[in-house]
């Protein structure tokens, strides 16, 4: 018997993901993504990972979705409200989607992970997260910092207006 909350979250998450992809207006798509991510955060809560859930909401809903919404705003409307897709490709995409769903799902279902009573282990301590990060994962954390710094530098470099730069870059 499945938990109704779980079912609700699943429907919400997957549904809003589909909505995010298939609505005509891109802005609704961004909002759909945000909702879907909230759904994921809900799952995290279900899995006794409130810290991750909070982080998820902060980063994804707070940053990513907003970022996307800004980007959508920057782009002219005509690009936003015309949904152009090819019939053949859509059919192929759906078939591929189903195959992946079936293939991966079946693989998992027949595997040893599909056992009853899987969540018997006690939930982990949130404090341990910090500990782990600062001890075992400390180099990773440093590198993560570099990743973020790099992303900032890269994004800035990309986003900078070219007005100040005069030279032709590449004649092709």
């Amino acid at each position: 018997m499945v938990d109704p909350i779980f079912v609700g979250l699943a429907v919400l998450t997957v549904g809003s993901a589909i909505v995010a992809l298939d609505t005509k207006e891109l802005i609704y798509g961004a909002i759909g993504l945000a909702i879907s991510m909230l759904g994921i955060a809900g799952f995290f809560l279900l899995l006794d990972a409130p810290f991750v859930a909070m982080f998820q909401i902060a980063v994804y809903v707070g940053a990513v979705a907003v970022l996307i919404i800004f980007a959508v705003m920057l782009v002219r409307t005509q690009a936003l409200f015309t949904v152009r897709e090819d019939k053949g490709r859509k059919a192929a995409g759906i078939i591929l989607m189903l195959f992946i769903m079936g293939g991966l799902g079946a693989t998992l279902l027949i595997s040893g992970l599909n056992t009853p009573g899987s969540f018997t282990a006690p939930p982990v301590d949130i404090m341990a997260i910090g500990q782990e990060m600062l001890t075992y994962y400390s180099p990773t954390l440093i590198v993560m910092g570099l990743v973020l710094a790099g992303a900032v530098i890269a994004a800035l470099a990309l986003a900078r207006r070219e007005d100040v730069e005069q030279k032709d870059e590449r004649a092709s």
Partner: protein
Amino acid sequence: MVTEFFDAINVWLIWILPFAGAAIIPAIAKGSKSARNYIAVGFALASAASAATLIPTALAGHEVHSQVSWISALDLKAGVLADPLAIIMTNLVAWISFLIMVYSLGYMHGDRDLTRYWFFMLFFIGSMQLIVISDNLLMVFFGWEGVGLASYALIGFWYHDRKKDYVGVEGHRAGGIAMWTAPTHAGMKAFLMTKAGDVMMLAGMFLIFAYAGTFGFKELLADQGWAQAMAAENLLVPAAVLLFGGAVGKSAQFPLNEWLLEAMTGPTSVSALIHAATMVKAGVFLVARIGPLFFALSALNTGQFFEVVAWTGAITAFLLATQALVSPEIKKVLAYSTGSQIGYMMMALGIAGISLNYVDGYTAGFFHLMSHAMFKASLFMGAGAVLHTVHSRFMTDMGGLKKYMPKTYMFMLLAALSLAGAPLFTSGFWSKDAIFAAVLESGYSQAMPLFIMAVVVAVMTAFYTFRMIGMTFFGGKSKHVEKIEHEGHHVHEVGAVMWVPFGILAVATIIVGVSGFLFEEQLHHLFEEYLGESFGIHEAAPATERVFLNLNPVAAAASFGAFGVGAALGYVFYIARKADPAAIGRNIVTRGIWTFLYNRWYLNTALYWGGVIGPMAIYRFIWRYFESTIIDGINPAFQGAMTYMSRWVKGSQTGITQTYLFVFGAGILIVVMLLLL
């Protein structure tokens, strides 16, 4: 007795001198033209003199055998072997060659390529001497190919292929094949056809070497284990026959006879050399060289080999004699006659091996070789003199030259009589008679057919000889002679430098002829001793009683008769001109025979269709439909395939990210499937 190089230097010099002369001739030619000519002749003389020093050795029945190390890897030695056989032969070759060289001084006077001429003449002589004097098959083969090469170069001497140097009747085709030939073509033909023989000879040599590990005649004789081993595998006779194949090629025996006729494109002096002293005699000499060896092995059933030799000779003799009957060209008549006479020699050497008395046949064959060398050289040089004067190779363009060229006429007549076998005073008579006798006395079961063929050939020989003499020297002046006289050419006797050499030979043949029976006796004795000492072959008691002058009565009668019949017919048609030879054209049968003979039994036709045109057609087919399409197609086909596949890959690379991603997604599934497999 194996002697040191320097102790036998005179033997070595016999073949080294001509080669050395050939080598320095081009250098001398830079300096003085006339010095070149005389030095060339001088080298021939020196070689001859060197050969002459050996005559006492031969008469004493001794031999000189000298070896130096050569191919150490295979334990082969170079050597010379001057036994009586070789000594007689080498003298014959040397002196006749020398005379021909002298003759060339006049005949070739003024030719601009004389350097080349002298070079190859000397090379020719040297190669022939190498064949004669070598003590092993490998060196013989060096000389063998040397004469082939020299003949190739000399037959095609006038390489510009001017019309006047052609042989054959222009425009005449037999079975679609042109029966006239340019000099260079003739040279090539000679080389390739003799090459076919050489290949067989090589095969024979190789077989023997594979078993014996040596090529040396002496060594082969000394230890006959190889022969037993070969006989055990039934290879001895094939090896011998293959060796004989070389002789067939070189001596223009059937079926490799066709090249000899085209070889007339060369200068006549060259023809004389080829026919009298070198080249074609090489084949006979080879058989004379290896014959005793195989006869000594006749316990191993080598008789078949000799049968092959005898029959080949007989067939060739007959074949070429018939063709000589109808040829309009003087040199070609002589050429046919050479082939035919060589057939006699082969027949004699062959019959010797299947007879009780090896020495008889052997002597007969070799005697005929000697007498033929003399009279044929003389005849050729005479014919050259005629050609020189008349500027035409056709006997129909001659006629009535007797009064213009009396010396030439006289000497040619003498030599021709010898060829025809005029009884008792010509060498040709004695040698031919000896062959008849050898055949008759052989005790060979098929001796009679051979004998009859030999007699028929003798009849024809006499006939065509008289035909030649008659057409050339008798009768009225031909239109051609009138024409050239009209043009201001004076038809005259040739200079002494030309007529003296062939005069000497013509006289020599008569001298030998007059003393023929003594000469034959002497030769017989010499060979008896030689064969006995070297090979252990001894004469059995004569099977038949000999009569007057030690002649076999039946054979002698046949000789007389054959000459009589042939000469009479020739006289009637061509000298007395009592009957018109044109009559044969009016009868369908005779005309058919005439055409058949005139077209050389269609052998040339068959040769070209089977040996040139046919294979070339096949090659062309392969060239067109295999090499040019399939093989040449591999590369483009491969390129095409690659291009096609490349286009396909490029086509899949659409540039649309979605497609890429689709492939990526599908790829995951594929990998999962592959893993699950």
